């Protein structure tokens, strides 16, 4: 075979694309849907992106999640037709968004069922489980979200860091146990993140392909932490391996907590919120274990207080911007992506910890030791039990 000129190669490469474009044009022009689904009603589906409750009524942000245009003919709230304004008005094309304002006198603390009735009579419903006024972005609300982020993210992690002095005095076997314990914690967190991510993925508009998004966000999270670790080791030779691992654990947990912060905001954005002091306490206990995971790799180091504070901030801090973002600009797509990235990051962190902890030993021998196996189980067990308090 003779070698083609570069120009010829480019032409050959473009040929299939040109043919594909011609095929698409032919299909669109022939309108096969007219013969394929004769008389079948259009497929209608919307997803509710946000539900806001204000003194003036209920505001819905919806997106047409179906392939066909949707015309919203009427709106019912709690089985009553109600006045509404749609913006923009008219039919919604595939993936087009609209705001619907309904001047409905909703009741604080009670449930409401909103239904969109399309021109074909299909009803698309959303339940507001507990009606509470949606916070508007303002200094006061920013401060409130920051306080919550501090309470469920930063403080528990900081408390966990206080185990650091104790860890330093542990004999080798006990340290193995402690590190394995943190691996157990992280594995539990990983499973939880994936489960939450899958659940969130099922809620996003199907056009956004939640599960694929989650999977590739996880892969991205994993690779990003891997690259970050490599960069730390190369560029900053004076940072010890243990500090590097601790920092990576912080970043991984930070990503995870960012996703959790989004979920807090989401709870508000979708009008799902109820009171629970006990739940907050349980949650604080649950998150305190994250601090332990960060300091365990540092047991044989002499870490300065500033470093510990930095690690705590990196791990817990993202809860606050997460909560802001979730509360004011909630996007279920962003929630899926960040849960996925968090899960990937945690997986990478687990690998990092194991690598540095195993050292010269054979992996099988390491895992087989009573301290390690016990630590793994204990870590998962602690998460399971504190999770039960929360639930």
């Amino acid at each position, binding site marked *: 075979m003779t070698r083609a000129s570069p120009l010829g190669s480019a032409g050959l490469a473009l040929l299939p694309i040109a043919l594909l474009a011609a095929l698409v044009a032919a299909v669109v022009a022939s309108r096969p849907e007219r013969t394929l689904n004769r008389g079948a009603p259009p497929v209608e589906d919307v997803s509710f992106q946000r539900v806001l409750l204000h003194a003036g009524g209920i505001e819905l942000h919806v997106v047409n999640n179906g392939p066909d245009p949707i015309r919203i003919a009427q709106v019912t709230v709690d*089985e009553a*037709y109600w006045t509404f304004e749609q913006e923009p008005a008219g039919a919604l094309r595939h993936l087009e968004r609209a705001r619907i304002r309904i001047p409905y006198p909703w009741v604080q603390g009670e449930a409401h069922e909103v239904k969109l009735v399309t021109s*074909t009579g299909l009803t698309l419903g959303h339940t507001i489980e507990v009606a509470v006024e949606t916070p508007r972005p303002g200094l006061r609300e920013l401060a409130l979200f920051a306080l*919550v982020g501090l309470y469920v993210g930063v403080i528990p992690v900081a408390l966990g860091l206080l185990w650091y002095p104790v860890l330093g005095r542990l004999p080798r076997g006990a340290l193995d146990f402690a590190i394995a314990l943190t691996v157990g914690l992280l594995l539990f967190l990983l499973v939880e993140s994936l489960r939450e991510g899958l659940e969130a993925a099922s809620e996003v508009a199907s056009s956004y392909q939640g599960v694929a998004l989650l999977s590739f966000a996880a892969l991205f999270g994993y690779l990003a932490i891997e690259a970050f670790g490599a960069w730390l080791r190369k560029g900053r030779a004076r940072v010890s391996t243990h500090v590097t691992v601790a920092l990576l654990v912080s970043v991984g947990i930070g990503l995870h907590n960012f996703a959790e912060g989004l979920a807090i905001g989401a709870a508000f954005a979708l009008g799902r*919120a109820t009171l629970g002091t006990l739940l907050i306490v349980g949650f604080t206990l649950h998150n305190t274990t994250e601090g332990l995971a960060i300091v365990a790799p540092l047991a044989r180091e002499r870490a300065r207080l500033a470093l510990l504070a930095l690690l705590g901030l990196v791990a817990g801090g993202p809860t606050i911007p997460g909560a802001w973002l979730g509360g004011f600009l909630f996007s279920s797509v962003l929630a899926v992506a960040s849960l996925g990235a968090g899960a990937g990051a945690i997986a990478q962190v687990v690998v990092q910890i194991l690598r540095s902890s195993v050292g010269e030993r054979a992996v099988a021998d390491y895992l087989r030791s009573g301290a390690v196996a016990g630590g793994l189980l204990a870590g998962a067990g602690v998460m399971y039990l504190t999770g039960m308090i929360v639930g």
Partner: protein
Amino acid sequence: MTRREVFKLLGAGTAVAGVVAAARAARTGAAGPARWADEPRASHTAHPHAMGVVGRVNTDAYDPAVFLRSWNFSHLPDHLRPAHYRETPRPDGTLLREYVFDALDREIEIAPGLYFPAWTFNGQVPGPTLRAREGDRIRILFRNQASHPHTIHFHGWHPPEMDGSLPDQIVEPGKEFLYEFDADPAGLHLYHCHAVPLKRHIHKGLYGVFIVDPREGRPPADELVMVMNGFDTNFDGENEVYAVNTVAHFHMHEPVRVRVGDLVRIYLVNVTEFDPINSFHLHGMFFHVYRTGTSLRTEEYTDTIMLCQGERAILETRFRWPGSFMFHAHQSEFAELGWMGLFEAVEGR
């Protein structure tokens, strides 16, 4: 429960409220959980009369205000009416009343912008109202031009072969059948398709009113036909729309005009499917009830009447004052899903 689910329940503001309340409790030494009452309440600026459908239906094909006061195709212009209705005197002084009814598949607008794939008699829901005098002969040519088998089953005295209900009485698409019987007894009746499945054939729109006047007649009155119906638009076995005469909240925007002091007679028929009963309530007034209209003596004086599926009653009253009088189902759910309207009473002749 997982952490995310907890977050769903938790909610940031309430979490803060909890924290603050806990702190307050710690300060004052008082124990006890934070309550809803501690929350600032939203003061509502939502308009209280924002209930109701949005927009107006197109009344070119079917106008509920016209249906209200039409029978025997009186809504058709003179040159079109004979194609559907003819009356011929008989030797004994009664009339032969001949009708042509066509079953047609038709999309109808039951609330503004909301289209229902109906099965209809003559393209409308409810079907055209028949009205005869006791003893008249009724003859109906029924032509099934729809996509499914249908019948017309009348309430009233008739021989079994005219019942339109048994398997051999089903009229297949493209076929026709001649129903013939005497108008008997005097009263307020109905007709509907009796092909199976019954629920679907009825709720899709195949029903109408059959009025038989007593030989001696009833006192002159402003007469109104009201059919209480419902529509299951998403086919889940529940009605999404309720109405009198099909269009949700129609008479909220187009009140039924009546004159103060005139006798008003309402022919009220319940053909609602899925819900066992429906009801009629009139504000600020009372009315006399003639159940099934078979007696000229009233047996009830009330402001709310309940009717079972297929049950009907004649109501009579006089408006005392000019102004707006609301009427609706006293099942609040039905009222807010479309079955609500207004009378507008005006003075003078």
